[in-house]
């Protein structure tokens, strides 16, 4: 009985030395400024240099950042598939190009970007989610709240 309780407490509140957070002094900009340099210069591109090879290590660095993202109830339903096979990339890009054509025909009065560029992306990670896993968390139950109405299942903003 006692052992069980101890185990439980350790589960919830790990106390190993490597879990101690290394935070700067409140108000120090030593980390804010370099972080803002990354944030401000972050942009979207829709065509890439196809000849570039992403070093394996970069996938690890990027996905290590992803797995630390905050998420409702810390549910972490995500799976990441690193796609390196050019045929698979092309097949996925082809789907989006077809989709783009279909949307263009719908005359949505909103520019649909050129999806051909997707095949040129040297780095290609497919993000999947297991929503059964999200639903396993009682705090994320469905109700009529704004959040559930508008973004049911949107876990990606966190990744």
């Amino acid at each position: 009985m006692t052992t069980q309780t101890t185990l439980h407490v350790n589960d919830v509140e790990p106390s190993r030395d490597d879990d101690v957070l290394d935070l700067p002094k409140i108000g120090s900009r030593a980390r804010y400024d370099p972080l803002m340099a990354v944030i401000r210069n972050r942009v979207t591109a829709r065509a890439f240099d196809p000849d570039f090879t992403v070093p394996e290590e970069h996938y690890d660095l990027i996905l290590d950042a992803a797995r630390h993202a905050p998420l409702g109830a810390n549910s972490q339903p995500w799976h990441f598939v690193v796609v390196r096979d050019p045929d698979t990339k092309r097949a996925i890009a082809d789907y989006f190009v077809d989709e783009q054509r279909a949307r263009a025909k719908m005359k949505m009065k909103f520019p649909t970007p050129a999806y051909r560029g997707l095949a040129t992306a040297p780095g290609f990670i497919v993000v999947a989610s297991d929503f059964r896993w999200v639903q396993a968390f009682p705090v994320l139950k469905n109700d009529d709240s704004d959040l559930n109405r508008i973004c049911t299942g949107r876990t990606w903003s966190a990744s």
Partner: protein
Amino acid sequence: MSAHLGAASLGYAVWWVTAIGQENAQKAMKPLLGISDELSVLDIFAFGPPARPPYKLWKKSLDEIVDHDRFDQTHFMSDAELEEWIRSKRHKVMFKDADQVD
């Protein structure tokens, strides 16, 4: 977002392509990747050195989006204003400069 910043910190440009909510995207990608039907493909996180120098899009200023203690009603868009905005300006949100939007 963490992944995006991680990639940006290494010098990459990123392109998120949404797949969730598109039944055809699910049908096209799951078999290709061997992803079980129970799972959902959210999006593709594409990154690399950009083919052309990318540019920074306009972003709303803090004045437009931040209030203190109470929501400032001058920041509220009526349904009619929103409809007008969708009709006349929405297609420009992906432009570079804010003055091309307003």
